[in-house]
């Protein structure tokens, strides 16, 4: 049974035009009007709350120092939605644990959310985009190692119920780790990780966690999923489709044109991703030197591959470009069902469709219509996949 999750970055799009040199890291917050921002927060939360009635699950994330995403603390919308919703599962994808300096606090936040929501939390752990290194000031050359130490500590903290344990690791030091409350779900809420390379897919596979590929399209998704399947097989388990998630942009409408128009507006999420000064894109040691040298040489232009292998710049792709890549699905509900079906078959199947149902300038009315129409006319067929 395919599960669908609605995701929005809570963009502060009213500020985009006045920030021509980039939307991240060094932009002054005087551009942000808290009154406009409050209205936006409430409407985005309303849209997520609506998901509970529409049979959709909820996905949040976090970014820092940016007008593209004003969810700077992912557990805050999670906390509000834990009270406001009753059925929807609450996924954070995710918590940048290698950039959070206090891993036990992460365990406490997730555990508390899990109890308040009566066991509806899904814990995403992510390394975070390269431009997140600057606001966190975490050492990019140690990120991988810190990420896994945080992971080990959080899991142990959530699953230890006989009183405190001591932790004197390389990056985290605690006299007594003793997380209260303990989580509702046993032994702990499900763990998800985002993966962009076959190398990291292998490690996630050995743990058996849900792997999420974000906007990786027809060409790259099978590579990442394939690496996961191979490593899982080596580790002796056969991963079902529930181990795989895919994030895409979805716009549906009463007409094909309306669905594409909605997807086009949501795609400003993708188009604004590269709007960051290039030096924030490749902090030293964040990726292996062979990859970094390519970035040093050619700058940071992100390109998306279409299914036929041709590519286009992420910053100015059309809705047709993104559809040809398998990053956006758009049109009437029936067309979207068909596109998702074709894509899922091509990449080997997944059970979690992470749907960016709002992005950029897509209005509240359009978002409600997009989610409602999707839920009424596409979800039943997609759910059966």
């Amino acid at each position, binding site marked *: 049974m395919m599960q669908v999750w609605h995701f929005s970055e809570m963009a502060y799009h009213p500020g985009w035009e006045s920030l021509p040199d980039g939307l991240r890291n060094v932009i002054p917050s005087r551009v942000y009007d808290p009154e406009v921002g409050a209205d936006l927060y409430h409407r985005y939360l309303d849209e997520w709350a609506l998901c509970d009635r529409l049979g959709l699950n909820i996905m949040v994330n976090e970014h820092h120092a940016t007008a593209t995403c004003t969810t700077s603390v992912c557990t805050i919308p999670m906390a509000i939605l834990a009270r406001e919703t009753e059925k929807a599962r609450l996924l954070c994808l995710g918590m940048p644990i290698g950039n959070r300096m206090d891993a036990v606090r992460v365990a406490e936040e997730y555990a508390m959310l899990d109890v308040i929501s009566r066991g509806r939390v899904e814990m995403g752990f992510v390394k975070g985009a390269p431009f997140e290194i600057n606001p966190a000031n*975490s050492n990019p050359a140690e990120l991988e190692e810190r990420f896994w130490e945080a992971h080990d500590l959080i899991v142990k903290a959530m699953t230890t119920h006989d009183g405190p344990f001591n932790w004197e690791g390389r990056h985290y030091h605690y006299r007594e780790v003793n997380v209260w409350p303990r989580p509702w779900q046993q032994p702990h809420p499900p763990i998800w990780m985002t993966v962009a390379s076959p190398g990291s897919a292998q490690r996630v596979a050995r743990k058996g966690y849900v792997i999420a590929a974000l906007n990786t399209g027809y060409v790259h998704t099978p590579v990442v999923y394939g690496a996961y399947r191979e490593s899982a097989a080596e580790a002796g388990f056969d991963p079902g489709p529930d181990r795989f998630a895919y994030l895409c942009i979805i716009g549906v409408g009463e007409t094909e044109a309306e669905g594409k128009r909605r997807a086009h507006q949501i795609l400003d999420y993708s188009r604004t991703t590269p709007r960051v000064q290039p030096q924030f894109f490749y902090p030293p040691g964040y990726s292996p030197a062979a990859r970094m040298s390519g970035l040093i040489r050619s700058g940071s232009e992100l390109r998306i591959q279409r299914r036929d292998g041709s590519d286009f710049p992420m910053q100015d792709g059309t809705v047709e470009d993104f559809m040809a890549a398998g990053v956006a699905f758009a049109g009437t509900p029936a067309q979207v069902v068909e596109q998702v079906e074709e894509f899922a078959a091509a990449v080997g199947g997944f059970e979690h469709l992470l749907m960016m149902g709002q992005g950029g300038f897509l209005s509240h009315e359009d978002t409600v219509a997009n989610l409602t129409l999707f839920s009424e006319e596409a979800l039943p067929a997609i759910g059966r996949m």
Partner: protein
Amino acid sequence: MSLVLFLHGEHFIAMGRPFLDRLGAGRELHAPLYPGYDGAPPDPDFRSVDDLAYRYLDLLEEMDARDATIVGCSLGGWVALEMAVRDRSRIGRIALLAPVGVKLLGREERDFADLPFMREAEAARTLFHDPARWAPDHAALDEAAVETIALERQWAAWYGWKPYMHNPVLAKWLHRAAVPTLLLWGESDGFAAPEYGRRLAARLPDARFETIPDAGHYPHIERADETADAVLAFLENA
């Protein structure tokens, strides 16, 4: 003549070769590459400038060095200072080319420019007096050369990311670096300003401060001969 230990800077190590040829002529010169920079990932426990300092103190001991000269460039100058405050028994003098490592300004002022988050062109202007001549043209380099640049940046982060290029407590122990010290600074240094060098000289027990015109943060690259002349004159007289 006692041995000379050269401790390299964070970037463009190979470009220091002409200076090292001058420094090593007729002398026992040791110029090791730091773990990581040498092409092999260091032991995971080896990741701080403290580790580098102990490693090269060990090296001086293994070689039974007496009255050794340490020449340290930028990051290597920081290592040399950490060595000198720990154990100066085998160290005769230190010549430092725009060393980093000591926090002298307030919490909202940078002692060292934030190179990792500068655009490439701005970083080149920060490091070099004449970037058009000295800063590598990444598009013209072969794959291996750009990968070396990426690796140098990675290991600079490994050793000096946070606190950024300094040890917060080193300033208070500088009185222990009681050896004749030359601080040599490129007049156009935008990474660690000459003013920082003057302040550092005033905090060291026995330091003199000299500048090299028409040079940035790596005077031994941009003005190899003048830098070698100044260091050698110091070696002979100190």
